[in-house]
């Protein structure tokens, strides 16, 4: 078609002569087919593949950053927890130490008190014993001294002081005088 047009337009030339500026039908047809086919492959195959790959890469990078951030946050919270636990443990230890110190003081005080009570008791017991001993000694002395004095007086006067009532009153008076005497002495 175009060849024919060209031939008529430019006068008599050898058959099969072609124009460089006028397109020929097969050229246009195959050119269009080439374009359409490549466009379809790019639209249907290349673009989806590229988009998918780019998205996957984007996700991987983004995801990597997110994962790293998450791991960091986790590490931070774990660290916080550890520090919290450590602080609690320290407080606990301090409390226990304080408690122990207080207990120690208390136990010491109790022991001291017990010891003092014990000492007081032992002291009181000892005093009581001594008093009893003294009383006993006094009584036995009193008897012995009376007998001794009587026998001494008997031997001095030469007569037996048989009348017990009389002798007893004498002895008692004597002893009372003796005591009064010794007490006045002691009072001086």
């Amino acid at each position, binding site marked *: 078609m175009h060849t024919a047009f060209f031939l008529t337009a430019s006068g008599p030339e050898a058959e*099969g*002569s*072609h124009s*460089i*500026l*006028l*397109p*020929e*039908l*097969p*050229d*246009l*047809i*195959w*050119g*269009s087919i*080439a*374009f359409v*086919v*490549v*466009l379809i*492959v*790019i*639209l249907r*195959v*290349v*673009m989806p*593949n*590229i988009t*998918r*790959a780019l998205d*996957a*890469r984007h996700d*991987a990078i983004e995801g990597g950053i997110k994962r790293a951030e998450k791991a960091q946050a986790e590490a931070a919270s774990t660290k916080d927890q550890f520090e919290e636990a450590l602080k609690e443990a320290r407080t606990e230890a301090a409390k226990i130490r304080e408690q122990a110190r207080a207990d120690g003081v208390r136990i010491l005080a109790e022991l001291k008190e017990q010891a003092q009570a014990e000492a007081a008791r032992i002291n009181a017991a000892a005093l009581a014993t001594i008093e009893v001993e003294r009383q006993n000694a006094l009584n036995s002395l009193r008897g012995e001294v009376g007998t001794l004095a009587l026998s001494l007086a008997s031997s001095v006067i030469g007569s037996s002081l048989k009348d017990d009532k009389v002798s007893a009153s004498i002895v008692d008076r004597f002893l009372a005088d003796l005591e009064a005497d010794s007490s006045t002495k002691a009072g001086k």
Partner: protein
Amino acid sequence: MGPSINEFFPAPILFIGTPFELNRIMLIRLLAVAALLLILWLGTRRLKLVPGRGQVAMEFAIDFARKGIAIDTLGEKEGKRFAPLIMTIFFLTLALNVTGTIPGLQIASTGLIGQAIILSIIAYVTFVYAGIRKFGVGRFFKNALWLPGVPVAIKPIIAVLEVLSTFIVRPITLTLRLTMNMVAGHMLLVLCFLATGFFFNMLISGSAWGLIGAGTLLMGIAFVVLEIFVAALQAYIFAILTAIYIQLALADEH
């Protein structure tokens, strides 16, 4: 016989006489498209989180078109919207251009103007569509033609110039820039290598002038390297101009 434009019009091989007629250049185009599709499919089939060497290269190429051309020009939102189209233009043009330097193929099917016209029409329709979709017909053309800050008296003249530059010159330059670069590159290579053959024949027949062939051979090799660069550059230019035209159509005011 010297290099001629008929290099781009070999005899048809398949479907002769139908609109689907295939000659060597069309077969090379289909081969390039098949190779491109295979690379795109295999290269993005199993993209890993941590890319290997092949994947890094593939991702570099795709990111170059997707981000470097589409998103950097159009912004995040519009860039993503038009990225498939711009990537298609870039990779298709690159694949078709690069056959110009592949041994055994050695011709770029973008040297045929039909392919460039198709791509230009798509770029044209896309930027007009994008502008009308955003602003409506009236405001789009007003934005494009009725420029603010221009004295009212000369606004109509400017409008005519804008019609010319935006709606007529743009698609034509897009088309011709691509096609002519590929045609010229092919001609240069053919010239260099035909000349090399010619001079080496002279050398065999005993003429010292044949030594010039060494120079033309070196030039040919240098131009092959240049053509690889041009193949990528033209694909980049076509794609980025498409992106810029869309961006201009979407801009509130010029």
